[in-house]
């Protein structure tokens, strides 16, 4: 387990689980992205679950950082899933016109981990 800045990152098998509990300021969000990508590179993680249950507010900057982190992780071969978005956050993002494209979502950590497992299994099943 490692704690980068104020966002703890757990390793569950070859999946990383990051739970964002604090109100995000831009610099922390940026540092988070750096750390995650670095950790993926170091550990070769095949899954990434970002839990944002603790976020009361996600503005366009944070939304972009989260989306980009997911997409960058995917490029590195890691299945990334954002979980636990709150109703008020989802409503605000769509009302702003922000589209979180290229990132998978799931209801909660369990669902996120299950999705990651399924995707890994499928990839293996496809003869990779």
């Amino acid at each position: 387990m490692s704690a980068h800045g104020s966002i703890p990152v757990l390793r569950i098998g070859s999946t990383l689980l990051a739970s964002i509990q604090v109100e995000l300021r831009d610099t922390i969000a940026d540092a988070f992205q750096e750390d995650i990508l670095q950790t993926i590179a170091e550990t070769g993680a095949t899954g990434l679950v970002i839990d944002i249950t603790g976020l009361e507010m996600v503005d366009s900057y944070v939304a972009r950082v989260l989306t980009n982190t997911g997409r960058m992780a995917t490029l590195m071969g890691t299945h990334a899933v954002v979980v636990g978005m709150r109703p008020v956050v989802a409503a605000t993002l769509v009302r702003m016109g922000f589209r979180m494209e290229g990132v998978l979502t799931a209801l909660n950590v369990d669902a996120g981990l299950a999705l990651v497992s399924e995707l890994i299994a499928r990839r293996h099943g496809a003869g990779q």
Partner: protein
Amino acid sequence: MPLQYYMEKLYLDEAEVESRRHFFEITADDLTRLAGLHSFAEKHTDDIVEDLYRLILGHPEAKKQFTEHATLVRVKQAQRDYFLGLFSGRCDLAYVQDRLRIGIAHERVGVPPKWYLGAYARYLRSIFDRIAVELPDAAQARAAYQSIEKLVAFDTALAMDTYIAAQLGALERHQAAIRELSTPIIRLYQQVLLLPLIGTIDTHRADQLMEAVLLKVVEEQAHVIIIDIAGVPLVDTKVADHLLKTTEAVRLLGAQTILSGISPIIAKTIVNLGMNISAMHTKSRLAEALELAFEIIGKRVTSIAKNHPAAAAEATEKS
């Protein structure tokens, strides 16, 4: 409904009160004149209120309205206060609030406009008779009477507004209740929700719906929500747009939306409008949507095997 409700509904703030004073042509002179007549009012208030009650008691229907309530004495006192209030020399927000309270009391008791409007007219006649005696100078008397008339007109407007606001309030509550009843979000199965939409969807309702859907999805941790629009008579760009927004928001939460009840007309509308709904699952029939929902959560509906007790009983019955 409390005072605050009416203040909001009627947009009553200092600016609005000033605007009304202006239109009813109530000047500082009028108010000063009225304040100067306060002792005249006190002298005659009992008689004038009695005039009103003679009118009411002499009218069979009106009499029924007022004497059925044991509050007659209290109402008389309220009338006295009302009458004297005309000569307070004020016509500000506080004055308006006092008047509103009287209107609210009438509304609560269920007094229809015809009675209290008739009462205002009765006051004016009573005052007219007595003003001429109090102020022998015709010009003075006329000026005084006009000031009173202006303020009574002002009060009448408030009374009407209160009455209408109360009716509209009741209507709004009924509409809200209907909306509640017509958009229940049902838990069909574990992790599967159903929202059968009925009736027209305007922007306001669509906004509320999206919020209700999102809250329910998280509360139930539902993986799928089926939104059935067979009961929506009109689907235009706006409605389709709202549905798209809702679908996207549900996706952000980590769940999926299936839109069902797509009739040929709706299908035509959506395609002709050039709307891109490729992100949504869509089905024409609710039954198909349900099958898809089960598939999404990894379940399947199968036939009961032939040697199941229920099947056996049925087979026995048939033979």
